[in-house]
């Protein structure tokens, strides 16, 4: 497996699971997206595929995700961050499942940290890149740092 395979698996998994969760299509954007304000969530993996995935989503995207996962439009609640964390957990879990099955490895996921700080969070890893996604419901960016042992 090469770095291109890792990128492809992450992109395909995120797009496929997002489509199922929100019932709306989202596309990969080669152009980097920056947000003035965003909800940030950090999730880590440990094992053969060791990584950090730092998710940033704009507020439109965040609100749609929460509504879709709650199944209602009941406005904000103190559980909203838990829904956002779960969304990141599901996206990352599906991608890591594919990577694990392909690599024959058993990397595990951490509990998501909602509201994590962004600065340099993925810098501890040799390989770093950013994946951006655009949709009619808003945008999402994922900063990825990783290394793997076969």
């Amino acid at each position, binding site marked *: 497996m090469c770095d291109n395979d890792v990128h492809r698996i992450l992109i395909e998994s995120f797009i496929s699971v997002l489509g*199922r*969760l929100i019932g709306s299509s989202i596309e990969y954007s080669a152009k980097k997206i920056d947000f003035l304000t965003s909800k940030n969530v950090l999730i880590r993996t440990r094992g053969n595929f060791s990584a950090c995935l730092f998710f940033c989503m704009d507020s439109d995207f965040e609100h749609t995700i929460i509504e879709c*996962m*709650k*199944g209602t439009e009941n406005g904000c609640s103190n*559980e909203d961050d*838990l*829904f956002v*964390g*779960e969304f990141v*957990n*599901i*996206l*990352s*879990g*599906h991608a*890591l*499942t594919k990577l*694990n*099955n392909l690599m*024959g*490895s*058993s990397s*595990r*996921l*951490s*509990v998501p940290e909602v509201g994590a700080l962004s600065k340099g969070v993925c810098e501890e890893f040799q390989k770093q890149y950013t994946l951006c996604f655009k949709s009619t419901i808003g945008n999402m960016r994922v900063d990825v740092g990783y290394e793997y042992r076969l």
Partner: protein
Amino acid sequence: MKKTILVIDDSPFVYHQLNGMIEGSDYEVIGSAKSGEEGIELYRQLKPDVIILDIIMPGIDGLETAEIILAEDKDVNIIMLSSLFDANLLSEVKKMGLTFLLPKPLEKDVLFATLEMLEKKQSK
């Protein structure tokens, strides 16, 4: 009488999803816990027919929680749930004597097929 379900998951998503899915069925959710520790306590109080148990949780995770509950009652019906469901995790779950690991998000057909299999297993 309806069969009872206890949900153990740090996120409320599964609880919301499940309540929608089982509406009008022979099942009802009688409790939900946000951690393994809380889940074990609720299990002891409520003795549900089925436990739906998330694996990735802060504190003691779902696998440890299942181990503790199984040590108290080896016949308990547990459906493990995880966003991660690779071959290694599946084999870990099987080694513990558990049969069911469902991927998140839950799908209604898969959930009811699993509940049906649990019922058949019990009636044997």
